[in-house]
């Protein structure tokens, strides 16, 4: 069962490595968002440290939208989506595979964004890199989970990228709040545990809900 999910994820990730389509456009989109933030706020070193959690999360959120717009791109032509649904595994497992593929790509981009942000904004928090990455991973699990469901939901919709942003941004408000607060807590020595708890609650709820919702969505 899980092998099927893993194969679907691998198909997406390996395919993207060969075409380098999603990964590179996500990365360059993230860099341009960082440039926009630098030009808009011109933070000095102290301000940059305070802004860092918000910068990282806003960049992650926008970059995820680029990736999510393409989650089902491979399936859009020649009835490939129907072919995928015909696989002899539960629909939830298919969803799990698509989610896993998107999660891996998004995490790869985040791994590159984090040092880039520190270099571009001149912030020295290398010692806390592990903790910051941990928070990013926790938030990304729920973000891509809900995002993959919304991507499936908006499949075949007109102007779907705009629609995806309109739906995803308000629904992920708790992730953004908890992620920014937890990261700020790590950087300034404030409260962290309640925010990590909120991130975990969000992840668990959406990982339980979304495969089921996907099953309802694609049922004929």
């Amino acid at each position, binding site marked *: 069962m899980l092998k099927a999910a893993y194969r679907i994820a691998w198909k997406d990730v390996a395919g993207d490595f060969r075409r380098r389509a999603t990964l590179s456009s996500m990365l360059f989109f993230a860099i341009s968002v960082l440039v926009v933030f630098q030009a808009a706020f011109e933070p000095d070193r102290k301000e940059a440290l305070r802004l860092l959690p918000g910068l990282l999360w806003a960049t992650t959120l926008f970059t995820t939208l680029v990736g999510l717009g393409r989650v089902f791109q491979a399936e859009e032509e020649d009835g490939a989506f129907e072919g995928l649904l015909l696989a002899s595994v539960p629909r939830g497992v298919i969803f799990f595979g698509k989610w896993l593929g998107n999660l891996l790509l998004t995490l790869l981009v985040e791994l590159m964004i984090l040092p880039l942000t520190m270099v571009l904004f001149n912030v020295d928090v290398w010692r806390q890199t592990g903790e910051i990455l941990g928070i990013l991973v926790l938030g990304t699990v729920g973000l891509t989970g*809900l995002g993959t*469901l*919304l991507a499936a*939901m*908006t499949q*075949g*919709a*007109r*102007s*779907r990228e705009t*629609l995806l942003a*309109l*739906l995803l*941004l*308000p*629904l992920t*408000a*708790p992730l953004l*709040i*908890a992620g920014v*607060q937890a990261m700020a807590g790590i950087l300034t020595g404030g*409260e962290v545990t*309640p925010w990590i708890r*909120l991130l975990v*609650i*969000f992840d668990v*709820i959406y990982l339980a*809900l979304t495969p089921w*919702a996907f099953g*309802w*969505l694609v049922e004929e």
Partner: protein
Amino acid sequence: MKFLARMQAPLGVLTLIALAVGLWMVWTAPADFQQGGAVRILYLHVPSAKMSLFCYIFLTIVSIIHLWKRSETADILAEAATAVGISFTGITLASGAIWGKPMWGTWWAWDARLTSMLVLLILYKGLMVLRHSMDDPAKGARATAILAIVGAVDLPIIHYSVVWWRTLHQPPSLTMAEKSAVHISGPLLPPLLAMSVAFILLGVYMLTLKARQIEAQRKLDALEAARLHHE
């Protein structure tokens, strides 16, 4: 739906009477000793905030029924509830801002209730856009119903995350002001009850009107499609 058609006229008259009585009671109610005449906005604000939440609860229930029984009526009611809900949410946010300016000294504060209401407004809008951006109406209805349920799960999480955010981050000065406004007592209570009843009637009336309009629209679309097919 036939039942709704027969109910509509009496319901409309009843709503009008209830609104007239409610507004008269609001007009003659004593002014608050701290808030003055501005407290009267709350008689509009509180019932409308309740209605925007009731509409979402109703929307969630009919969405589940639509997914489960594939009922067309449930889907029509869901579309109508979204339209009614977004208008009540808009009224809530606008009246809250008008009340907030003289009371809090600001139009807007990132308080848990205000933030949740704003997210609710965007969610209603998202539901409307999603439904109409699909070429296949059945697929649009299904996706919208699922999004409504996802939203129903998300709204409490959003509310509590903002509550935690504000209480951990800064003292909840503004929520105190809002809470004291909820503890309305004595002569201020009857007009609030009257307005609540009036708004419930108004909500049901708007829902029947919108549901009948959507039903007629769908019949018309089906006829148009049949005519094009025939030609």
